[in-house]
C-alpha cells in the first residue's frame, strides 16, 4: 500500500539466543506458535485463502448471476484464452509497459540527479530540498490526484496559464488534457513520478552518503572527470540499491490504481487503462469477476519474476534469517 518496504534495521542482528536455551520446558515449545498464531490466521484469511479463491475464480464463469446464486460453472482455462484473445488486453499490456518504463526511467534518472544534487549543496539547501521531498512523499495519493486535476483544469488550471505564458508551446488556455489519451497518460505518468520521486531520491542520497570519500579523492587524483566518476565509482557501488529500486518501482507502477482511476477512470475510451484498472473494470464494471481474476493473475505472474529476484536479493543480504 505505502512505500516503505525495507525496514530500517536498527542493530546488527545476530542469530538470536533463544529462550529454549534458558528454559526448556514443554510450555515454551508452544509459546512461539501461540505468538505468531494471530498473524498466521490473518495472513491465511486475508491473503492465503483469497489467492486460492482468485485462482479458482479465474477457472470459473463467475458473472452477475453468480453473485446471488453463489454458483459458477467450472470452465477451465477459457477465461485466459478469452482474455489473451482480446485485442484490448494486448493494447492494455502495451500501455502498461509504456507507463511503467516511462515512470521507472523518469523516477530513476530524476531521482539520481536529485540525490547527486543533495550531495553537492550547502546544508541549508539540503534541508530545504529534503523537507520539500518529504512533504511530497507525505501527500496522500488521493489528495495529490485532486491537486493534479485542479492544476490541469482546462479553464482555470494554473499549468495551462504558465504554459501559455512561456510562449513556446502556443496558446494553452482552455486546453483540455483529459480529452486526449496520450496527454492524459502523460499527466498520469507525471503524477506517479512526482509522488514517487522522494522515495527514490532520498534512498539514493542515503546510499551515496555511504560511499567512502577516499574513493572520490583517488578518482580525482587519477584525473577522472565528473561523468567518469559517476560511471565508474558511484554507479557500480550503487548497483544493488538501484536494482532494488527499479524492481519496486516497476511493481508499484504496474499495480498503480488510484492515480489513474481518480484522474481518468481509465478513459477517454479506455485510452489510459493499465492492467490494474483493466482487471478492476472487468470485474466491477462489467461484472465479469472471472475475467478480472484472470487479468489479475496474468499481471501477478508477469511481476512474479521480478518479485522472486527482489526476495532473493533481500535475503542474500540479511543474515539474520539464516
Amino acid at each position, binding site marked *: 500500500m505505502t512505500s516503505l518496504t525495507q525496514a530500517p534495521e536498527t542493530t546488527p542482528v545476530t542469530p538470536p539466543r533463544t529462550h529454549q536455551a534458558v528454559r526448556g520446558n514443554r510450555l515454551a515449545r508452544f509459546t512461539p506458535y501461540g505468538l505468531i498464531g494471530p498473524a498466521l490466521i490473518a495472513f491465511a484469511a486475508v491473503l492465503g485463502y483469497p489467492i486460492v479463491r482468485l485462482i479458482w475464480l479465474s477457472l470459473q464463469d463467475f458473472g452477475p448471476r453468480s453473485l446471488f446464486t453463489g454458483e459458477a460453472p467450472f470452465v477451465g482455462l477459457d477465461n485466459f484464452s478469452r482474455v489473451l484473445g482480446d485485442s484490448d488486453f494486448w493494447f492494455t499490456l502495451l500501455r502498461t509497459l509504456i507507463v511503467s518504463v516511462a515512470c521507472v526511467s523518469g523516477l530513476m534518472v530524476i531521482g539520481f540527479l536529485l540525490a547527486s544534487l543533495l550531495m553537492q549543496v550547502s546544508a541549508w539547501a539540503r534541508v530545504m530540498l529534503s523537507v520539500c521531498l518529504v*512533504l511530497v512523499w507525505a501527500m496522500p495519493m488521493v489528495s495529490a490526484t485532486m491537486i493534479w486535476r485542479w492544476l490541469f483544469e482546462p479553464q482555470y488550471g494554473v499549468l495551462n496559464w504558465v504554459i501559455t505564458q512561456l510562449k513556446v508551446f502556443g496558446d494553452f488556455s482552455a486546453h483540455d488534457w483529459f480529452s486526449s489519451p496520450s496527454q492524459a497518460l502523460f499527466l498520469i505518468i507525471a503524477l506517479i513520478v512526482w509522488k514517487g520521486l522522494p522515495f527514490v531520491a532520498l534512498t539514493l542520497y542515503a546510499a551515496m552518503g555511504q560511499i567512502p570519500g577516499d574513493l572520490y579523492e583517488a578518482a580525482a587524483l587519477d584525473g577522472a572527470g565528473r561523468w567518469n566518476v559517476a560511471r565508474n565509482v558511484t554507479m557500480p557501488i550503487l548497483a544493488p540499491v538501484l536494482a532494488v529500486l527499479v524492481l519496486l518501482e516497476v511493481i508499484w507502477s504496474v499495480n498503480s490504481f488510484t492515480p489513474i482511476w481518480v484522474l481518468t477512470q481509465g478513459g477517454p475510451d479506455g485510452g489510459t487503462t493499465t492492467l490494474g484498472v483493466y482487471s478492476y473494470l472487468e470485474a466491477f464494471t462489467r461484472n465479469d469477476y472471472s475475467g478480472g481474476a484472470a487479468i489479475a493473475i496474468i499481471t501477478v505472474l508477469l511481476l512474479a519474476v521480478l518479485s522472486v529476484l527482489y526476495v532473493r536479493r533481500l535475503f542474500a543480504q540479511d543474515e539474520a534469517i539464516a
Partner: protein
Amino acid sequence: MRRKRAVPNTIAVLVSLVVIFPVYWMFATALKQPGKILSATPEFVPWPLSLDNFRTALTHGPFLHYVRNSLLVSVSTVLIALVVALGASIALARFRFIGRRAFLVGLVLVQMVPGSAMVIPLYLMLRSVGAIDFVPGLIITYMTFVLPFTIWTLRGFVAGIPLELEEAAMVDGCGRFGAFWHIQLPLLAPGIVATSIFAFISAWDDYLFAYVFLKSQNNYTLPVWLVSFQTSDGIDNGATIAASAIFSLPVLIVFLLIQRRLVGGMTAGAVKG
C-alpha cells in the same frame, strides 16, 4: 568553497520550488477567497486570506462524520496490527521453532501481493458472508496488509534488546509478562512509533479497498468521500481543494516531525539495499 556551491545551491532552490509547487498550490487555493479561484490570471499569493473554502468543506454534508470514520478505521488498524505484530516479532526474534524460516520468507513474499489483484476475491468473500459495507472487514484487510512491514521492523527492535535485561527482571521477581511490560515495551517504543505511523498512514491514505468495500455513503472514509465530493452546484474547486488540504494535513505534519529520522533511517535501510 562558497563559490563552488553557488550553482548547485541555486539549482536546489529552483528544484525545491518546482517540487513543492503542487503542495503550495493546494494551500494557496484553499486559502483564497472563493471568488478569486476561478480567474483567468491566477494569483500566486492568496491575499487577502480567507477560510471560506474550509468553511464550505466542513459544513457541506457531514464532513466530520467522515473524519470520524477515517480515524476509527485507521486507529483500529494500528492497534490491532501492533498487538498481532508484537507477538509475531517476539516469536521470530526470541524463539527458534520449526517453520520460522518459512514464515520469514512468506513475510517478504506477501508484501509483493498487489492490492489490486486481491480486491476481487476479498470483495466476493465479504459479499458471500454478507459483510459488504462492514467496516471491521475493511480494518482487518488493512491490518493484514500492514503486518509484513510491521512484523519485519519490530523483529529488528526486539532482537536488539539484550536478553540479559529480561532475565535480570525475571530473576528480580518479574513474571515473563512483567518483564515484557516493564523492560521490553519501553525499549520498543521507537519501533512502535515508527510502525504505528506506517500503519496509520496506510489505512488513512487507502482509496481502493475503501472504495470497493464500502457501499453506503454513511460508512465512507475521507478519501472515498473526497473523490465523490460535489456540492449542490456541481464541483466547487475551492471547497474540494480545501477538503484535500484538511485530509493531507495530519500526514504532512507527522512527516515533517519525523523528517530527520526518516532520512536518517533510510541510510540504515540503504546499506542493506
